[in-house]
C-alpha cells in the first residue's frame, strides 16, 4: 500500500501517452512500455505530485460511485516497487 498522504508522481524518465493503435493509455520509459487498462490510465493521469493518494482515491471514487482508495493505494504500491512511481515529498 502506498501511504494515503503520499503525493505520487511518475518517474522522471516516464511519460504517459495515449496509443491510438492499441486504443489505450501506455506508460513509456527507457527500454519499456506498460500497457494500461482504463482505470490504471486514469490513476496515473492524476499522479502529478500534488494530489495525495487519498485525493486520487476520492476523485475516482466520486466518478465511479465506489470507495476505490484502497485499490488505488495498492495499485500505486506495485508501480512504486517497479520504480515507475515515486512520492514527490
Amino acid at each position, binding site marked *: 500500500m502506498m501511504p494515503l498522504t503520499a503525493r505520487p508522481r511518475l518517474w522522471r524518465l516516464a511519460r504517459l*501517452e495515449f496509443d491510438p*493503435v492499441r486504443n489505450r493509455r*501506455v506508460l513509456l520509459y*527507457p527500454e519499456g512500455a506498460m500497457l494500461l487498462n482504463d482505470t490504471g490510465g486514469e490513476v496515473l493521469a492524476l499522479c502529478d505530485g500534488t494530489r495525495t493518494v487519498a485525493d486520487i482515491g476520492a476523485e475516482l471514487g466520486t466518478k465511479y460511485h465506489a470507495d476505490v482508495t484502497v485499490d488505488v493505494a495498492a495499485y500505486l504500491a506495485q508501480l512504486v516497487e517497479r520504480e515507475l512511481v515515486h512520492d514527490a515529498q
Partner: protein
Amino acid sequence: MPNEKPGVPTTLLAEITHRCPLHCPYCSNPLDLARADAELSTGEWQRVFTEARALGVLQLGLSGGEPLLRKDLESLVGHARQAGLYTTLVTSGLGLTRDRALRLRDAGIDHVQISFQDADRTTAERIAGLTSVDKKLAAAALVREIGVAFSVNVVLHRGNLDRIGEIIEMAASLGADRLELANTQYYGWASLNRDALMPTRAQLAAAEPIVDAAVARYRGRMQIIYVLPDYYSEFPKACYGGWGTVYIVIGPNGIVLPCHAATQITSLTFDTVRDHSLDWIWRESPGFRAFRGDDWMREPCRTCALKTVDFGGCRCQAFLLTGDARNADPVCSKSPNRHLIDEALAVVTDLETTIVTAPAYTYRAMPPTPTAGQRAKAAVGD
C-alpha cells in the same frame, strides 16, 4: 511454414549510420559496415518512423555507429517525437556540443544513453582506440544540463570487469538516472574478439555481490540493470520476446531485421524499406516469418517445457556457432553443441592459472579493407 500471426511491435532500433569515430573491439555492429553513401535520407527515415508508429511501435532507439555523425539527427528526433514515440539517443557522446544538446532537447528527445568504456581512463581509451574520456564527461554534463532522462551504458568484459565497483561509482557521480551494465554479447566485432573479451568465472563471481549491493544502495536514485553473460549460464537468454514478436531493427541502408545480429544468419534474406513498406516486411516477409511461432524448432527444443520461456534462445548465436539457425542455442545444457561454448570457456579457464597479459584486440574499423577479418591486429598493452 511458421504457424503464428504477427503481433504488434513495441520497439524500433534505428541504426542510422555505421560511421563512428571509436574503434571498440566489442562492437556488436556487423563486420560488413554500411558506407555513408548507402544510408537512408532524412525523408526516408522520417517515413519509416511514421510507419513504425502506425504499426504500434512505442519506443525508438536512435543508434549506430555514432548517431551524432548524422547532421539531421535533430530533425529525426523532432519527427519521431511528433509521431508520439519515446525517443532514446544511444551515443558514445562524441560530437555532442552544447548547441546540439539544446537543439535535441527542443526537438523533444526523451532519453540519452551514453556509453563509457571503463572507470579507468587509460584502459577506457585503450578499448575505445581513441582519446575520448574528456569528451564523454563533457557530454554527460550536457545531458544533465538539458535535464532529460540520462543513462550510462558500460559493456563488460575481461579487461574492465575487475573495476565494476568503480564503474558503478562513476555512473553515480555523473548523475545517471539509470546504469546498464551489459556483459558483452558475441556478435559482429565482438565475435572476432571473443577470446580477448571473455571474462573468467572468478571475475564474474567477484562482480556479482558488488552489483547486488549497489542495486540495493542506489534504489530510487539510479536504476541498475545487470545483463548476465550467457556463456556461463545453463540455459540460454530468451530471444527478445521471440523472433518477430515485438522488436525491429533497421540498419543504415534500410535493411529491416528481427535482431541487430540477424544479418549474420546468411541463410536468410532480409528486405529493405526502400523496396517494401514496413508493414509488409513485419507481417509477410520471409525473414520475419522464418522463426515466428515454434514450428521451425528441432529437438531438444521442440518437446522442451521451456520453449515458451526462452524460445530456444538466440537464433543468431545458434547459426553463428552451429551453422544452422534452427538448432537450440548452444548455450543450453541440453544442446548437443554445448561443447562449443565449453571450449570457448576453456580458453579463459587456463588464463586463471597463468599470468594474465593485456589481450590483443582486433579493432573495429570502416572499409575499405581487404576483407574485414584481415584488419591489422593491433596489439595493445606493452
